[in-house]
């Protein structure tokens, strides 16, 4: 193991973390700020990826595809909010879980009906593909750098939206007392529709971007869903800064765990079982981090004390 490799892996961890934040960004808004447990977040992520892939293939333009991912995911968000989610804000978390679980089934099967069971083609456009050389001689994928930039931009945008604008304050107020905020003159239903659509659009956009370097297929959203919840909870619900920090923490821990644990076990085991044990442990690592964080800080790193 060389020093540059270690640096590169730390960079990879950061990058993975920002990517996690990107995947979680829509959920940060809908779950973190609005307080709605939306298991269908992964489905919206999938909708974005499929919309991007389909449009990019049909038109030949990746950029049109990206735009389509925003539009279709937002549309899906509005539809779902008006038809279903709206009735659930005042219900308990459990009804939200059941309803959005049902939505996963509907979205997955619906997508499969439309697009078939085979993965779709979606690839990074020519000008963004390939690697660039970073200072220190590390080769790094250009597209990943772009993802980092977009991730930070979205984090900044969300922070500003939630903490600096009146709309953001109203959203947070609505989370704690919907009745009161409307008794004071805010059309909270409309506001929440818009926010949900925005969350959906972010999910879809992330799906398109991340789908470009991963696979676009039915079911792609479910692992994302769990990860997104994990990072938000580690960071503390309601805190966008927390979600970002949580993402990066998970990204770095996961990447370094995958990389270092097998090496560590290799010190006193034969290589084959060392990698097996090391990677078994690595896959449990983020959950250990989460359990540890919550044990010592029951409301996450930046969560309000409930």
């Amino acid at each position: 193991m060389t020093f540059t490799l270690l640096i590169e892996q730390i960079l990879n961890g950061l990058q993975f973390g920002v990517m996690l934040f990107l995947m979680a960004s829509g959920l940060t808004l809908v779950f973190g700020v609005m307080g709605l447990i939306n298991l269908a977040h992964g489905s919206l992520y999938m909708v974005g990826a499929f919309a991007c892939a389909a449009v990019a293939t049909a038109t030949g333009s990746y950029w049109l595809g990206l735009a389509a991912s925003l539009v279709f995911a937002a549309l899906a968000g509005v539809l779902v909010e008006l038809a279903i989610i709206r009735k659930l804000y005042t219900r308990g978390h459990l009804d939200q879980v059941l309803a959005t679980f049902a939505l996963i089934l509907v979205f997955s099967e619906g997508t499969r009906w439309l697009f078939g069971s085979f993965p779709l083609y979606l690839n990074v456009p020519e000008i963004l593909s390939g690697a660039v050389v970073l200072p220190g001689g590390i080769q790094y994928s250009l597209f990943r750098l772009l993802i980092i930039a977009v991730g930070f931009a979205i984090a900044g945008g969300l922070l500003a939206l939630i903490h600096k604008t009146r709309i953001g304050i109203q959203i947070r107020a609505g989370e704690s007392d919907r009745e009161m905020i409307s008794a004071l003159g805010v059309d909270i239903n409309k506001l929440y529709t818009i926010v949900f659509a925005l969350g959906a659009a972010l999910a879809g956009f992330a799906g398109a971007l991340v789908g470009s370097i991963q696979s676009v297929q039915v079911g792609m959203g479910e692992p994302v869903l769990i990860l997104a919840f994990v990072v938000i909870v580690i960071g503390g619900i309601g805190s966008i800064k927390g979600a970002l920090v949580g993402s990066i923490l998970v990204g770095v821990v996961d990447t370094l765990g995958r990389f270092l644990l097998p090496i560590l076990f290799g010190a006193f085991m034969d290589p084959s079982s060392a990698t097996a044990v090391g990677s078994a442990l690595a896959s449990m690592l983020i959950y250990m981090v989460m359990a540890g964080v919550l044990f010592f800080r029951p409301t996450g790193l930046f969560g309000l004390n409930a």
Partner: protein
Amino acid sequence: MNPLLSLKDVTAFYGVSQALFGVNITLNQGEVVALMGRNGMGKTTTIHTICRLLPHSDGIITFKGTDISTLPSYKIAQMGVGLVPEGRRCFPNLTVKENLIATARKGEWELMSVIDLFPRLGEREGQFANTLSGGEQQMLAIGRALMTNPTLLILDEATEGLAPVVRQEIWAAVSTLKHAGLSILIVDKSLKELLRIADKCVLLEKGESVWAGVAKELTPALCDRYLGV
């Protein structure tokens, strides 16, 4: 002259159980009306029905001449009804300042004037509302309602939990507001102050308005019968 607010034979339900059986109130522009009755007689329910926080109701409620009984609550608020709810209900996850500006509308009440009225809120500006003392929360709730610059202010037990000096300040403020022409519907346990400031009183008994009249006419006999004092 048309009354600013009028309730005619209003009934209301919590689920299947009826809480209001016929409430009548008229409140004219610039008037202060006190809503009185023992615990559990329907004062808060009446207020919630006006603001449509309790959707299962019947009867006619007009505000500024418009029937508001089927409008969503945010529209009613936008028409100029400002509510200080029972139990304060500040937004716990918002800071004091955010609580105040979240629902503010243009008008003479602004952040500065509210802080002038309650300097304590200025000192606690960045603190989350759920960590405020009870009285501080009460001030916040009043400030929040004022910042919507209402035509009609509804105060439901707005002096509950306040220190006597502050309570006096609030009564003074209410009376200033009254003289500035603001109309007020008020529920409070302090009979003395109510009678001093109210133009009219409405007595509630088991969800029905049983007596309405000017404050002077509220005889000890009535007080004994309907208020238990």
